[in-house]
């Protein structure tokens, strides 16, 4: 199973006084965590995300970008976002669907430099916030399994995805506060169904990664919903669980049955939980 952490990153995100943020060439996998802090930083009211150079994007990139859009719009009624489309038509097609196509939030729009692409069959649930418990139930119980089944991913893959989504979203709502961002996508490059949940749960400003290590320790002790996915219950289905919070990073490849933890230099101002299910 190809690991998204092995992708080369070519982020060249920079902000200018005119409120333009470049998305860089790669906004996918764990490498997109590095771009997340920059995307979420305050900017001038009229903000542009320039995706022209983008060559790779997935569910991780989509939740960060969508979260950045929502966070910026929430800063004031006069705030707006323009999304400049990737020049690569295939990448634009993927990004377009990952962001919900034409159903962007109000005061956010595509720049209109490229024609509307054909619908991709790889985006299962586009990136978006889940505001109420009813939204969450509708996505986990109905939209997710129906879409995965329609796209030919099989009942067992759907069940793993449902369980992970339910647990990660519950965690985000209970501990994160606010509406979590959710996205499911079939990443053809890695042959993985990705389920990604993002919330802006706070973390100690002096976090050295220990906050996430405590979470992992509780999972190991059988506490919390993710402990249920630590057992190899779903025969024939391989997956990796990943958690990122502040400076902490943790992953659990189910074939290894062991959590791996590490710390990074730049803190992520959010909690990101994900599962990548190999197809």
């Amino acid at each position, binding site marked *: 199973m190809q690991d998204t952490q092995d992708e080369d990153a070519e982020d060249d995100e920079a902000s200018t006084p005119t409120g333009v943020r470049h998305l860089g060439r790669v906004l996918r996998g764990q490498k997109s965590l590095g771009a997340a802090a920059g995307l979420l930083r305050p900017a001038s009211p009229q903000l542009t995300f320039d995706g022209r150079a983008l060559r790779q994007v997935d569910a991780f990139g989509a939740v960060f970008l969508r979260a950045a859009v929502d966070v910026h719009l929430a800063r004031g009624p006069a705030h707006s976002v323009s999304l400049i489309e990737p020049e690569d038509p295939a990448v634009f097609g993927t990004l377009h669907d990952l962001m919900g196509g034409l159903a962007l939030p109000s005061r956010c729009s595509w720049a209109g430099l490229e024609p509307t692409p054909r619908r991709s069959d790889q985006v299962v649930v586009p990136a978006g916030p889940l505001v109420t418990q009813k939204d969450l139930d509708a996505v986990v119980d*109905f939209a997710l*399994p129906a879409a995965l089944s329609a796209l030919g991913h099989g009942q067992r893959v759907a069940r793993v995805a449902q369980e992970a*989504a*339910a*647990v990660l979203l519950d965690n985000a709502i209970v501990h994160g506060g606010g509406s979590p961002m959710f996205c499911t996508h079939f990443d053809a490059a890695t042959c993985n169904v990705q389920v990604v949940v993002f919330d802006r749960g706070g973390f100690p400003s002096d976090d050295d990664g220990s906050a996430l290590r405590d979470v992992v320790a509780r999972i190991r002790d059988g506490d919390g919903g993710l402990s*249920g996915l630590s057992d190899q219950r*779903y025969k024939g289905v391989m997956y990796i669980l990943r958690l990122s919070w502040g400076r902490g990073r943790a992953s659990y490849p189910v074939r290894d049955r062991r959590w791996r933890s590490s710390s990074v230099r730049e803190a992520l101002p959010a909690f990101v939980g994900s599962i990548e299910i190999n197809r």
Partner: protein
Amino acid sequence: MSLKLARYDLGQLGKTLATRTKGREAGNEAAGRLADEGRLLLNFHGVDVASPPFLDELVRALRAVLTTGEQRWLLVAGANEDVEESLQMVLERQKMALVVMKDEQMELLGGSSQLTETLVAAQKMESFTAPELAEHLQLKLPALHQRLNALLEAGALARVDDPTSTRGRRHKYHAPSKDEVTEVAGDPGKLRTVMQT
């Protein structure tokens, strides 16, 4: 002997039952019904996913009622193979067993092969005393009592005082077969439909 049982539909909670909180809520409700009605069908029809943390809380709550010493009978039905496997895992961790309807047969989930052997023999005899079953299985009474207690704890057997006993207190056991089970509320055909889906 015809047994009527109440029903608790886990599908009403949703198709994805994955958190401990939900498990605790379901456990409290199901245990309450089991305590009130004495006989309960735990129906998983419509549930796609039941995670071990959810099932752990559910089973704990039901176990607390099953081990009160009063007559209780509990049957599981409608679980898909992944739910059943998760339930088996949780029951093994809690060293407990439950009776599950599968392909119109009643089987023991989470128990040892000896326990299953005992239940099968009990179902064939339907109504018996411990010495009668011990003789049938060629077991010593203390060993059999251990198995009978485990099956009582699983809600798989009913136990009553034996009115024919002349010396001391003796119990009579009853292991209902599938044909004897009917649903207490609604269409009697509903249970068969539940078990077939």
